[in-house]
Each structure stands twice: as C-alpha cells, then as structure tokens.
C-alpha cells in the first residue's frame, strides 16, 4: 500500500506526486461511470458568508450552516454539535476520497510500468 515507509524505501517511480492532480483519465476502468461531485454552495453564498478560501470546497454548505448556527446561539455553541459533526464527517469523507485517488493513481502508475516492461520484453524476443 501507499504508506509512508513504503514511499521512503520503495519504488519512487510508481509513487504519485502528492502535489499534483491525477494524471490518468478519471473514468478509465469504471464500466458504469462515476458519480460527479456536486457543489451545493454558490460562490455568492460563500462570499456573503465571508468563508475563507481554504474552506470553499465541496463541504462549504455545511461549513456555512455550522458557522450560521454558532452565530445564532452564541455563546452556547454546544448546541451546534450536530452541525459540527455533519461538517467534520463531510471533511473526513473528502479525505478518504483523496486517499482513494492517491491509491488509484499509484496502481495505474504500476500498471503502466508493468505494461512498458512487458512491451520491452516482447520487443527483445
């Protein structure tokens, strides 16, 4: 798997660039396609809520709901526990998705390498 130690001592050529987006076709290998991610909050809403740029991701609508709740019940913010839980769960799922994308990229890189090696072997024969 793509754990930290494997990156450090393992094969560097099949370790994805953690600063770049996936390089392969996102729909490759999905026979029934993939559901698109839906952005619920509009740019106007995010601007109006003065949401920091780093929070304007696919969980933005939950971040806005959480902050709105906090503002409403301040200082009894414990009443927003459900909104907070909802928002943090969304962020957790987002992180899992990023991990899956990393693993998919790594496996596709390995597959490409395998195929290239096989092609080189066949050319020799």
């Amino acid at each position: 798997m793509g754990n930290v130690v494997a990156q450090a001592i393992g094969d560097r050529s099949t370790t994805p660039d953690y600063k770049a987006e996936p390089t392969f076709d996102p729909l490759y290998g999905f026979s029934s396609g993939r559901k698109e991610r839906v952005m619920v909050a509009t740019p106007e809403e995010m601007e109006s809520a003065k949401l920091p740029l780093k929070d304007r991701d696919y969980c933005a609508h939950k971040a806005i709901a959480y902050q709105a709740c906090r503002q409403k019940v301040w200082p009894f913010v414990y009443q927003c526990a459900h909104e907070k839980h909802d928002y943090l769960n969304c962020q957790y799922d987002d992180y899992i998705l990023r991990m899956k994308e990393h693993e998919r990229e790594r496996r596709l890189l390995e597959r490409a390498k395998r195929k290239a090696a096989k092609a080189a072997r066949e050319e020799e024969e």
Partner: protein
Amino acid sequence: MSAITRSLLKLRPLGGFQGLAGTQSARSAGNWNKDWKPGKYPVTPEERAAAARKYGLRPDEYEPYPDDGLGFGDYPKLPVVSAEARDPYRDWDHPEHRRDFGEPIHASADMYGLDRIDDTQKPRFSLNDQALSFFGVMAAFFAAYFYLNDNKMHWPVLPKQYPEEGKTHYTFEPAE
C-alpha cells in the same frame, strides 16, 4: 566655617590636615591620578634598579616597555597570564581577581580579567578540531537535505479538490 577651622587647629599636634593626608598617602601610595602614573623611562642601571624595587620585582626580571612613544614609562613589561588560566583552587589574596597582594599588575590587566578574554590557556580542543566538528556536522546535514530533497515523505493523499469552472471531480460511486 569657624568650627571647621577650630577642629583643624585641634588636630595640629597630630600634624593637622597635612598629617592626615600623609598617613593616607603612606597607605595607598598616591592621592591623585598623577601619583599613580608610572615614572620616566629608566636609562641607567641605577634607575632600572630603583624602578624594579618600586614595582616589587627583582632587577633581573624587570624589563620596561620599549620607549618608542607608545610605551608606559618605567612600568614593567610583565608576561600575560589571564585570570581564567590561573588556579581557581589556590588561596589567592583576591580570589575574585585570582591575584595576590602586592603582585605586579599587567598593563592591560583589565583585558585579562575573569569576565574577559583568556588567551594564555591551551584550549581543550584545538581550533582545527573545532572547525572540523562544525563544518563536518553542517556538511552532514546539508548532504542529507540535498540527497533527500526529491524524496519527500507525504501522507498518501492527493491535493484537496476545489470546485472550479470547467473542472469535474468524481466520487467513487457508480453513476448508474
């Protein structure tokens, strides 16, 4: 004013004000800045012997600074021994200066005090060793940095996805 005059007159049998000042001068060998100044550069052997006696040295260890315009008159040229280099466990008369009473003081003694430089003691590690240790450690760190610069550890995640105009992100669920 008259009271002061009278008290001074009463001291007359003891030598008066002059007498008091005289006892003071005998104790501290000087009253004023100019009294502490070294004398003229000694030329004749007699003058040298007198100067040596004045500074509490034997005539054979007495050697004044050269009279080249930057010297110190008849002040003796003493070997430099920093206070830091002296035995800290000896029973010095002035332990805070590591100095004995009546010991001649170096002309630049204020530079070789306990809180100042120590250039007479042999350092525990030579300058070469110190330089080698410093540059060796720094070189090792830089070597590790440059060797590992393109081999950085990271959590196995790709960058966060932000919605953008004309860009589509996908979940891992089938689209049906």
